[in-house]
């Protein structure tokens, strides 16, 4: 293996370019979202937009730092970093500060840090490291167990912090596992479990189970009536019925009241626009009132006048939708699509398994954030408080996404050297 001539050799400038554009768009929209007549300068540190500039600047420093250090470092130190982050997650449970019901913040002076954000890339690295080990086979139960453990541990700790949204993000690793050989049945089962869950909340359970039973009988009638087929179908039916009938228990005993409300709002069962439905309704109004070309920069009344809550963090997409309209939404989703495609393309051109798996992790994490965040603002998913990558205000999230992405850029820049 030879040394790089310069740290910028083989850098994927497309990814870096999209990253910079998204970050700048985010900054401008944060400015518009919390625009304050008395603090007109976008550089005013007392405002969110001024502070975001600091986060952007420090993120760039972080990015360059990542590009400077040896790419082997990340693979070599994947486990120690993972372990370190787990320790911090424990620490935040003990010494953290509770914000909006989640004990997931460290407060250092005026700054707040959310360790859960950093668990994402750390877990991704550890998972990549494990799955790229020689002689690993996803078909093995042991592999599944270990890989699952890598994911479950941070999920558990983040759930203990009462930060369901961040914990949910770790489900995105299912894509990574799938890419590395996990049976597609897992995806299908997962999909149908969610479908059944939603259906069970909306339609009578008896009807669902009856329909399922009907399908099962039909399937048995049509398929070859082997013992195996019948048993398989019966087991599937039993599991499905189990899911359907456990929904109520799950819904009432596992979910928090506000989570139940958010799901009810989404399903149209809770129409209290002043209460639980307020956020989503105002968010929809903001985006929906944008029209084709939007109301124009700083002219978004919904966001500027605070009708939309959390307008610079979780609901930043409202500002885009309101001030830049459908065209703005199209640009944002287009940029993300380009980024995701590019990452997947990069993943597949790697000779290094570690880099490929890591890349899939990056794409999956970004995708789940995108899907959950925008899905929430346009009323397709329940309200789950996770940021829109690169755009939402916040140091922890911007830093963590920068690290996540630039480790990939760094690893990718070695693609021509590493042979395995």
């Amino acid at each position, binding site marked *: 293996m030879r040394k790089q001539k310069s740290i910028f050799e083989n850098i994927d400038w497309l990814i870096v370019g999209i990253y910079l554009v998204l970050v700048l768009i985010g900054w401008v929209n944060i400015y518009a979202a919390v625009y304050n007549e008395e603090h007109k300068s976008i550089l005013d540190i007392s405002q969110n937009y001024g502070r975001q500039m600091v986060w952007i600047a420090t993120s760039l420093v972080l990015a360059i730092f990542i590009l400077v250090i040896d790419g082997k470092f990340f693979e070599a130190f994947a486990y120690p970093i993972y372990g370190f982050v787990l320790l911090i997650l424990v620490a935040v449970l003990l010494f953290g500060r509770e914000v909006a019901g989640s004990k997931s913040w460290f407060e250092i002076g005026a700054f707040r840090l959310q360790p859960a954000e950093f668990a994402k890339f750390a877990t991704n690295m550890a998972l990549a490291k494990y799955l790229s080990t020689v002689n690993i086979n996803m078909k093995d139960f042991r592999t599944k167990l270990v890989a699952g453990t890598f994911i479950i541990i941070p999920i558990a700790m983040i759930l203990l912090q009462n930060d369901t949204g961040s914990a949910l993000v770790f489900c995105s690793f299912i894509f990574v596992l799938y890419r590395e050989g996990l049976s597609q049945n897992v995806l299908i089962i997962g999909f149908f479990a969610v479908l059944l869950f939603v259906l069970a909340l909306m339609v009578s359970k008896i009807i669902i189970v009856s329909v399922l039973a009907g399908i099962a009988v039909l399937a048995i009638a049509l398929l070859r009536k082997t013992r195996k087929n019948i048993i398989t179908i019966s087991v599937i039916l039993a599991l499905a019925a189990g899911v359907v009938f456990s929904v109520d228990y799950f819904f009432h005993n596992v979910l928090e009241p506000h989570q139940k409300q958010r799901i009810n709002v989404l399903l149209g069962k809770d129409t209290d626009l002043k209460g639980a439905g307020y956020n989503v309704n105002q968010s929809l109004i903001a985006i929906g009132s944008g029209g084709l070309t939007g109301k124009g920069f700083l002219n978004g009344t919904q966001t500027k*006048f605070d009708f939309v809550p959390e307008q610079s963090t979780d609901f930043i997409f409202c500002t885009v939708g309101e001030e830049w309209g*459908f065209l703005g939404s199209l640009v944002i989703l287009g940029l993300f*699509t380009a980024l995701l495609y590019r990452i997947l393309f990069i993943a597949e051109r790697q000779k290094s398994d570690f880099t490929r798996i890591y890349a899939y992790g990056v794409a999956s994490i970004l995708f789940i954030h995108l899907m959950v965040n925008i899905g929430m603002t346009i009323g397709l998913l329940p309200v789950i408080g996770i940021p829109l990558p690169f755009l939402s205000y916040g140091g922890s999230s911007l830093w963590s996404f920068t690290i996540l992405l630039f480790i990939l850029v760094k690893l990718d820049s070695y693609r021509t050297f590493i042979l395995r």
Partner: protein
Amino acid sequence: MQNSGQRFVILGIFTVVIFIYLVRLFYIQVIDDNYKLSANNNVLRYITEYPARGLVYDRTGKLLVYNEAVYDLMVIPKQVKDFDTTSFCEIIGISKEEFEKKLKKARTYSRVKSSIFEKQLSAETYAVLQEKLFKFHGFYVQPRTLRKYPNKIAGHTLGYIGEVDDKLVAKNPYYQSGDYIGVSGLEQSYEVELRGQRGVRIVMVDVFNREKGSFSNGEYDSAAVSGQNLVTTLDLELQMLGERLLENKIGSVVAIEPSTGEILAIVTKPGYDPNLLVGRVRSKNYAQLLKDELKPLFNRAMMAYYPPGSTFKLVNALIAQQESIITPSTVFPHSFVVGSKSVKCHPHPGGLSLEGAVQYSCNPYFCNAFRAFVDNRKFVTSENGYKIWRDYVLSFGVGRKIGVDLPHELEGNVPKVDFYDRYYGKGRWKASTIFSLGIGQGELGITPLQMANIMCIIANKGYYYTPHIVKKIGDKTNSTRNLSEKHVTLVDASHFEVIQNGMQKVVEAGTARIARFGNVVICGKTGTAQNPHGKDHSLFVAFAPRENPKIAIAVMVENSGFGATWAAPVASLMMEKYLTDSISRPELYERMIKGNLLPTKKD
């Protein structure tokens, strides 16, 4: 591990989700318009700018009605924080319970929108409140205006304003809940001119309903346009004198300038101080006035029907002359007998011609003249004779609305043929049945305004201008009504001379000598209207000076006996005041003012 199948599945999932999102975004942003409306509802507040109502002046430029600033205390419940409610309640003068009730009501309406907490705080209360308002979060004041009457006169004529009700808001698109509208008098008939044009300011508010500047730089805002001022035809001094003279009496005075139809004074008593029907005290006072046995809310000048009595002899004389039934030299026997009834007369010289009959108000003369008219053979039937007589009477502005620019004017009553047909049977009545019309009694009902208008006609020798109360709107002559049209009666000008002669004699040597003053030539006629309910009504009509008349007047004092005792002095004093700007007979003035003719109230 090259596993290309899976990589496309993942790519596919990403793509499908993003595509679904784009479709959803396209739908809510481009296709569905509801969200735009909701966004506007969220952020736009339409703030009404109330114009000041027009002021009202008398004919000499003295102020009759002006506006007083008051303050509506508004509240936005969501912004209300804990504060010293005790001192707050003390300042605006309500109890703690009322406070809670009002706040609850406002909350029920809206937590973020403002509603009226307490209406029409006075400037004094506001001054105290303003000092502490900063402590009362969520409260602010909105300036409004109330009507104020410096002279406490002419309540019926000036009218009052009230808040519009839901029915009106539904009917008339101009008005919004909370607006004021004229409900009587001038305020009602000149509402459009007085109210001005409401303005609107569109502001944007944030989620806490805090103003965040104007919408579209005020492009859609409109400024309030103040109402126009009215210059009335009233003479403040004359009006005040009239009201003072009729104090403690039931009756009315109408004085008109014959050459224009301008109403100089219009008094109805008992009346009320117009300030009573303003603002917060209005409904309480209104209810009280409504209960009053003397009916102070009843505008006698335009709504009360009186038999005109002897004053109507003038009209009969004119009509009979026009049809050549009588001439100035006609003499009737000094008696009028119908069956067992005979009409008596006051003692006076016999063998009177028309002028003398007017001077001495000879009852038989006019009964005879009336019979000669109605039963005249040239009209074939008495019924037809009466019909023609009635048409003449109506041309004097009687039995129909004259069209004064005030609401609630009534027609009066001159019965139609059908009425007598129904009462006596068709063809079963003739002049001798209804002869009392000849001396202004019987079924006749005439309002004081109509009596004054008849005086204008006689003063003008045959025509009148529609009596009216508003001269100018803003700087321009009142053109909202047809006020310059000369309404000509069916009687030729030549027949008026002899009537005026008689009327002049009434004052100089007849029943109304008490009305004389200075060297002004006055034409007058007393009347005593029989009143089935009690003592006769005292009536006097007059105009002066005879040449180039400046004032025509009708005075009615209920239950006060002869016309000369109360009505004539009142008319005389008022004419003197108007024509000479002085009162030369203080004893008479004192006697009039002190006279109390009110019925003793039953408890």
